[in-house]
């Protein structure tokens, strides 16, 4: 690639649109195909994402970060003993392992309105980067509502539905699961939040959950995610359910206030 790429490729004269989106637009072309640079960019990002899937979460570090915020936590392994098994057997990632059940037995007497679960999911980077900072905003809000909270449950090799078992154990009404989302090329560290009212293992289904996804530096901000979650919590307390029939009624002030000329195609 010693020759300037313009000599061997046809560039797209609309680079200016890249200011609006992280998507891979205006790549140009070699013939009708992606130029070498764009093609290798993609392969590089894929290599990073593939490697990221397999990096284990530092649970001790996470527990320490929460302790520094004044919050106790429990680290609970699921029945998926290793990463390979975890990827192929999602059923095991929804079940607490024997060690976890032992740990939970010691907490049997704790009363709870809400449980907060943090699971590594498919991106340990997402949890490492975003969970401590988000919890720093969320936990004071939950405490201000007067909710009784058990220790934060940190789940190793966990799937979303692991929250059901944990909410059931504490007889909690509200279940909030923070989980690492499957890494994308442009966002290896995207975090998702699943909220379930009256989550119970074997009873709750995906239709009973509300999902807030894409929480990362170029996605949904902590403040936006928090506003959505608090709205869902308050609404679910009113109507006594969650899921597809509980609509996210929050307005996105940032988008509403955009000047009309921002939508250049219709300006």
């Amino acid at each position, binding site marked *: 690639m010693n020759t300037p790429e313009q000599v061997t490729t046809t560039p797209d004269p609309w680079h200016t649109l890249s200011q609006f989106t992280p998507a891979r*637009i205006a790549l140009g072309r070699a013939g009708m*195909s992606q130029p070498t640079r764009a093609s290798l960019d993609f392969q590089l*990002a894929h290599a990073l994402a*593939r490697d990221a899937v397999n990096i284990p979460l530092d649970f001790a570090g996470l527990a320490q970060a929460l302790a520094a915020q004044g919050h106790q936590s429990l680290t609970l392994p699921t029945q998926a003993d290793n990463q390979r098994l975890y*990827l192929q057997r*999602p059923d095991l990632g929804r079940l607490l392992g024997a060690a976890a059940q032992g740990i939970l037995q010691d907490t049997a007497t704790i009363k709870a309105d809400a449980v907060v679960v943090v699971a590594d999911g498919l991106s340990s980077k997402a949890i490492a980067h975003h969970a401590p900072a988000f919890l720093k905003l969320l936990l004071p809000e939950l405490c201000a509502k007067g909710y009784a909270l058990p220790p934060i449950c940190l789940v190793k090799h966990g799937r979303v539905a692991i929250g059901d078992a944990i909410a059931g154990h504490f007889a909690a009404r509200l279940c909030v699961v923070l989980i690492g989302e499957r890494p*994308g090329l442009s966002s290896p560290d995207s975090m998702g939040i699943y909220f379930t009212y009256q989550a119970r293992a074997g009873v709750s289904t995906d*239709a009973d959950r509300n999902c807030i996804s894409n929480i990362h530096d170029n996605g949904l901000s902590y403040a936006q995610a928090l506003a959505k979650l608090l709205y869902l919590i308050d609404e679910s307390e009113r109507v006594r359910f969650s899921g597809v029939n509980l609509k996210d009624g929050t307005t996105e002030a940032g988008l509403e206030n955009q000047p009309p000329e921002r939508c250049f195609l219709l*300006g």
Partner: protein
Amino acid sequence: MYTIRTASLCYDFKNLRNLMAKASPPRSGDYLAGVAAVSHLERVAAQWVLADVPLKQFLTEALVPYEQDEVTRLIIDGHDRVAFAPISHLTVGDFRNWLLSERASTESLTAIAPGLTPEMVAAVSKIMRIQDLILVAKKCRVITRFRGTIGLANRLSTRLQPNHPTDNPAGVAASVLDGLLYGCGDAVIGINPVSDNLQATTRLLHLLNDVIERYQIPTQSCVLAHVTTTLQAMAQGTPVDLVFQSIAGTQKANDSFGINLALLQEAHLAALELKRGSIGDNCMYFETGQGSELSANAHEGLDQQTCEARAYAVARQFKPLLVNTVVGFIGPEYLYDGKQIIRAGLEDHFCGKLLGLPMGCDVCYTNHAEADQDDMDMLLTQFAVAGGTFIMGVPGADDVMLNYQSTSFHDALYLRQVLGLRPAPEFEQWLQTHQIFDAANQLAAQRSIPALFKPALDKLNGYCDEHA
């Protein structure tokens, strides 16, 4: 009944459901469900037994009980015995021979489609090789219309998928324009919204509607929100072209999606009433994918490919414009690697086409699957050779909202070059009129911004200069 003695071993497959699962080519989801064959020999033994099963048997032995599952009731009650008559005497093995023969022409395949059940086509697919799946699907022709004609011979359509991590309108519009300038978007311009929020959905629907009207693009829009959200949007008078919903092949799985047949019917009627299609009224867009039933813990003991075919019975009830198997999205616990993803994509296309559906394929994978771009190129090419109806167009093949890899605008242009595939005729006309494509459906050789979009981009550049 389902017994075979082979290689000095005796296999007794208890029932048709068990036999179908054991006969399935290997995939991780069936192992996860505990329904897969435990050895190669057991799998082939099951395929031998399955080949001798009369097609009629599928009308009397329901794989999920009629009383407990509305998808089964839809399949049985909706079966067209007249259409079935020409093949009613065949076994599964004979049916494969018939499909490969010259007797199975485009016309005869179209005629028998209402007489086929999902289980029949799933069964025959299990004893077919990839070249069989391609050959037979290629003979099927399914044509649908809204503002363009989808599915004509030697055509390939594309869904422009301009997703944005925060549903930002300018961000969406940037990807829309990039795609249009690469000749993409005749199947639909379809956005997956970040959250299922009526306000965000409505705003995106207005944006796409305004762009399509302003630039007179012969295509249709869709925001892939839950059907209940789209119903609310329609009730408020929002411009909805296509109603989207993810569907599955068992009642229990559809329950977990928060849908049932009556709800889909309500949405279908509401969309028909809007009469927004200019040349046709196919106004539904469905997505499916092997493994979604098991993922919802609702597979009813079926293998995932049979579940998937049953979802097509749900789809065909509502005469969709598009059906999309999102084959590699679900992850390695259902389709482990490139080999499993490729075969599943071609099976889904074959089964859907045989049942009379306009099948597209989201040729895709996730970063935790054992797959890469080479695997996708294999499926992409084979799917197009098989006469696939449409593929996705995602900027650079990287969906920055859903976090997976699909196909790029460039990928569609690759297929147009090597296979001579053209876009839908109305869209082709629009592309050529505005000098995006030349007469040979290639991108115009010397690149300048077409006059149609020049004012918008000039204004944007001016705006940026002023504020630089």
